[in-house]
């Protein structure tokens, strides 16, 4: 086949003009290399966030309602004194709801003798342990009786426990939370840092009633976690709760919600959106560098055609058609571009692995960059090669040999 003969001539040309070939591949190497790294970082970040979400304790059947308007963990102003125990009771009354765990939260200093540390103190109901499915390694979790009597008991996470007690047994010791003394009755099982560096063990739990009367001195809730009967009910239940809360809070139809939902999907969506915004910018940058790479190929090819006018003339003298010359130079440009793409992918891959190994950035290697590199570099080779190739072919053999 004539086309294969021209391909072979093109490969020979690439091999013979090593200097030019190297220069031509540079731009593509940079472009494809950065694209590979960007995709790897994007995938790595996503994986990290997924890990984080998994550690938030959401199952597919649960979500949270937070006081105050806004989105996810970000309150956009408005009252935070909107969510009450009455709201929680109304939610609990919904037939689709399995469990509701109302929650107060305050960051407090806790003190034992001369040791102290700051931790997140949550006021929750005993169902919390069921909902989170979190084991107690020592002692007990507080009960409904503790709740009713507003007992000053506390269950410590492993991080504050270690800070206050070291290796000693904390059970039945009295610690001070703010100005109030609490008896340690239990110790949460240690989960350890997540891959992304979040410490789920940095928390302590007290009965919600005690929290209201002793710590926060108010009955408003920080949030409530809702578990429904099965995952397919999540959306409908969220809508039902919205109606109940808007009615309970006397919101006019035009007013914004004074509460917000946190769902794993919501977090995921937010992460994806912010990652996309960043990705879009980075992809723009690498597209520009690929474009520059293409222009570099085109220019060097044009110069190289000027250098190789004789070669073109000789080939034409001995029977090469215009189409043969076009094919030869087009193959050269596609091959050079592909070569750049392959080298770029390899370099990008190496960088991604280094980033991961030395904890610089989270990366994850997927097959997409390979396909992208292949398609992109072929297209660039074709688009930026066609003009020089046609120019070479249009040289008249008579002029080319002069």
């Amino acid at each position, binding site marked *: 086949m004539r086309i294969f003969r021209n391909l072979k001539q093109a490969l*020979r040309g690439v091999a*013979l003009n090593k200097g030019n070939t190297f220069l031509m591949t540079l731009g593509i190497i940079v472009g494809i290399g950065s694209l590979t790294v960007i995709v790897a970082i994007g995938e790595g970040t996503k994986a990290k966030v997924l890990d984080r979400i998994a550690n938030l304790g959401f199952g597919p059947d649960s979500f949270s309602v937070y006081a105050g308007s806004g989105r996810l963990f970000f309150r956009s102003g408005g009252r935070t004194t909107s969510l009450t125990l009455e709201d929680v009771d109304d939610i609990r009354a919904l037939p689709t709801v399995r469990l509701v765990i109302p929650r107060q939260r305050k960051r407090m200093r806790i003190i034992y003798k001369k040791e102290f540390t700051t931790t997140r103190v949550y006021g929750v109901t005993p169902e919390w342990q069921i909902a989170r499915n979190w084991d107690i390694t020592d002692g007990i979790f507080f009960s409904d009786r503790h709740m009713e009597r507003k007992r000053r008991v506390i269950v410590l996470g492993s991080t504050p426990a270690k800070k206050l007690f070291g290796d000693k047994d904390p059970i039945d010791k009295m610690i001070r939370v703010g100005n109030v003394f609490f008896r340690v009755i239990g110790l949460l099982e240690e989960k350890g840092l997540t891959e992304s560096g979040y410490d789920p063990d940095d928390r302590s739990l007290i009965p919600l009633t005690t929290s209201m009367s002793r710590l926060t001195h108010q009955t408003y809730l920080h949030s409530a976690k809702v578990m429904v009967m099965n995952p397919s009910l999540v959306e409908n239940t969220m809508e039902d709760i919205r109606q109940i809360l808007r009615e309970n809070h006397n919101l006019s139809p035009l007013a914004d919600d004074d509460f917000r939902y946190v769902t794993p999907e919501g977090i995921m969506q937010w992460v994806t959106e912010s990652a996309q915004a960043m990705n879009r910018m980075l992809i723009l940058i690498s597209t520009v560098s690929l474009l520059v790479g293409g222009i570099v190929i085109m220019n060097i090819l044009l110069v190289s055609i000027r250098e190789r006018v004789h070669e073109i003339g000789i*080939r*034409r*003298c*001995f*029977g090469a058609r215009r189409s*043969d010359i076009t094919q030869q130079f087009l193959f050269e440009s596609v091959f050079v571009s592909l070569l750049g793409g392959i080298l770029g992918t390899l370099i990008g891959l190496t960088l991604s692995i280094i980033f991961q190994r030395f904890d610089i950035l989270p990366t994850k290697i997927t097959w997409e960059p390979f396909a992208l590199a292949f398609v992109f570099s072929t297209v660039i080779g074709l688009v930026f090669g066609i003009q020089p190739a046609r120019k070479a072919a249009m040289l*008249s053999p*008579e002029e080319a040999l002069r």
Partner: protein
Amino acid sequence: MSLIELRSISKTYKSAGLDVEVLKDISLRIEEGEYVSIIGPSGAGKSTLMTIMGCLGLPTKGTYILDGEEVERVSDRELSRIRNEKIGFVFQAFHLLPGVKAIDNVMMPLLYSRKVPKDARQRAEAVLDKIGLGHRMTHTPGQLSGGEQQRVTIARSLINNPKIILADEPTGNLDSKNGVEIMKTFDRLNREEGTTIILITHDREVARHAKRILTIKDGEIESDQWNENFQKSQTGPARSGAE
């Protein structure tokens, strides 16, 4: 029917807005198996005549019939095929592909034939052997002397068994010894294989190798005569090929 027939060929180049008539109404026939020298001072139009006879460019006016085909009527594709099958070029500046082995240079025209013969390599080897370069097949042009390079170009021009060899100052870049060798090769090709050879030169000594000498001056044929010394030059002692 003549192998080459030029009917009132004119060629005009545009140069700085001026029309320069390089060839003026040239008519000429060359039969198969002839050995023709075209001689004339530089600027006389020899090279232009060669580009037209070699199907590298088209005349401004007139008709060129090569082996029964009217050249200005055919497409670039056809023209390429004609060059590939019927004409072998030998240039003063050799024009070999740089960095490419002698044998691959010789095989290059086969790349552009309709079908690459299965015995392409053997054929190239045989041709190189015939011109005495069998031992240099894998050398690149840079590793060969001028005389050797010119012999590679002759091998290349022969690979497709063309009817015509068009040689433009083939000895111009060679010393006299190598020049003589090259001319002997042409003489032998014409004598033994019956290949039509058209030799363009400004050197009378070189021109004398041919049976017929055409003199061109100012774009016109000044004289067209048989070479009376032809037999002598074929049998006589080696002559100096260049000055």
